[in-house]
């Protein structure tokens, strides 16, 4: 099933606001996030992703220092039902996978992009990711977006319900 949410609408849905008004009560209701967290690293495309998301959502940030990944493990302590979003490197993604796996969750990749991605495209990715998370909470599928040719180290946008 395809979806066509406006940016603001989709982000509100991802945050749970208004969700009950548009969807029937189902097991998906349990996935409505009370808290939204964005994994981010200063000076990276992920920080831009955080800023775009922050424009429409009340979020908390999980900050990673460059090449110091231990802070990712704070995911273990996030409240149950939280939504986790981000645009991260391959290494960060591997560790987020591991931490989310420990919470019996699963990381859903929404796109894999070249590291030279522009600011405007990062905004689109933030939208896309929130829409995908929202679709997921209603039991709908959302197609991933991949760059056909990635010439530099890649970045991965994702969401995960904890």
């Amino acid at each position, binding site marked *: 099933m395809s979806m066509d949410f406006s940016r603001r609408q989709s982000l509100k849905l991802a945050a749970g606001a208004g969700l009950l008004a548009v969807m029937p009560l189902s097991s998906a209701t349990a996935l409505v996030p009370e808290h939204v967290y964005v994994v981010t690293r200063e000076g990276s495309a992920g920080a831009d992703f955080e800023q775009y998301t922050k424009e429409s959502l009340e979020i908390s940030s999980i900050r990673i220092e460059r*090449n110091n990944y*231990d802070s990712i*493990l704070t995911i273990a302590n996030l409240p149950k039902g939280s939504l986790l979003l981000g645009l991260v490197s391959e290494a960060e993604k591997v560790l987020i996978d*591991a931490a*989310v796996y420990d919470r019996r969750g*699963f990381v859903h990749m929404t796109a894999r992009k070249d590291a030279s991605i522009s600011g405007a495209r990062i905004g689109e990715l933030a939208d896309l990711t929130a829409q995908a998370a929202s679709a997921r909470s209603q039991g709908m599928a959302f197609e991933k977006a991949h760059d056909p040719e*990635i010439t*530099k*180290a*890649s970045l991965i946008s994702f969401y995960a319900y904890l």
Partner: protein
Amino acid sequence: MADFNVLPDGVSAEQFGNAIEEYAAIVGDENVFVSADNLASYNKIMIPADNADHAPSGALAPASVEEVQAIIGVCDKYTIPVWPVSTGKNFGYGSAAAATRGQVILDLRRMNKIIEVDAELGTALVEPGVTYQQLKDYLEENNIPLWLSPPAPSSLVSPLGNAVDRGVGYTPYGDNFFFSCGMEVVLANGEVLRTGMGSMPNSTSWQVFKWGYGPSLDGIFTQSNYGVVTKLGMWLMPQPPAFKAFVIRYPDDADIEKAIETIRPLRIAQIIPNAVVIAHALWEGGAEVVRSDYYQGEGSISDEAVERMKSDLGMGAWNIYAGLYGTPEQIALNWDIVRNTFAGTGAIIQDENDLAGNPTFDYRAKLMRGEMTLKEFGLYNWRGGGGSAWFAPVAQARGSEGLAQMELAKEILGKYGFDYVAEYIVGWREGHHIIDLLFDKTNAEETERANQCFDELLREFSERGWGSYRTNIAFMDKVANTFGPVKRDVDQKIKRALDPKGIIAPGKSGIYI
């Protein structure tokens, strides 16, 4: 009847459905996983293999030995194979996935009790789900001055899982199975065996004397499928009064010969008592920078690009990390011996005075004093694409062997367009050569090429007598074959004796009934 994605071989949907109901009665519905969503994380593997070949039928999360026994009983009744995992973080060896399709993952993370730590004897008894971080937190909270010896994925992984898979850490207690003492194992008939002194009722020496009486059995429960290890005794290193980390750098790839020849006598004599790491520039740099910043051409990275990276990062072609432990006086004496031994060999010797604040040195120093750090995960940024397979041949700690292994590995990796991202770990008299075959798993052609490359590495190294000490779930049969038919036959006979229906982890280390 539930719609199952993958059924165990020879088990009908109805039988599996009945088994699932019985599992749920043991561990509760919330600890039985059969939906595609819930099983996805157990099928997320980084190795160059088709994930479908390793897809699970289900996963179960028991919380006690009694629940494991009951699960094994149901498996026996329906002939359902179970694949035990401790924390499932065996990244370059296959993560939490099974060697064959259609097994039920026995996820032991909920069994996470630290049963005992004896501060005076320096021992611990832990369950499979305990992580290094959990154990370290316990030691700190209770002000117990004992060190752990975690592997590079450190805080995430299980001491029991690492020891049972014969993994290594970087302190003087680096060979984690060597420094284990006593196991509890649930056998395929549901009985519980305690090895060593643990079989004797009221024994007080289960965690202090390894051998017990009669044949010593611990080894047959490592890298095997003869039982489910549910407890492990560990020896923990007393925190020394002082510790000194240092690095010795050699400029050229061919210097691996000199590096090993110079370090070996110091290692065997225990002047340097820890598991020494000799890291190649691409292992060191690969965790710091990304490949495309230095090279965007075809094939393996060029020598010129590696030289630029080494220059930028101040690294040698080979970087030997080692530590000294003891009193300040002992360390001062041994430091003189180390410096004198390496003087005139063309090496640069650096310590904390030269490298204060250097993140790579800090990372290695942390590992050598048993602390947690995830820095090495930066390697996954090097090439991108999330593919990783650890090739791990062992050889004598002899310079000529190290050099020959490096040359062969570079030749084969180059043929397939991959980089030589490698390190040697000098355990005592042997060198574990760890090569991280990094590739883009989102690219089917590259994944297939990585598979063929791994296959050729295995074939060529084996023909020269260099066996793998450990391998990933897709290559377990092939590695088993390299150790010859008699070894495989004996492994199988033990399997048939202890697990006649083959319900515990079929395919582990190439062992089937």
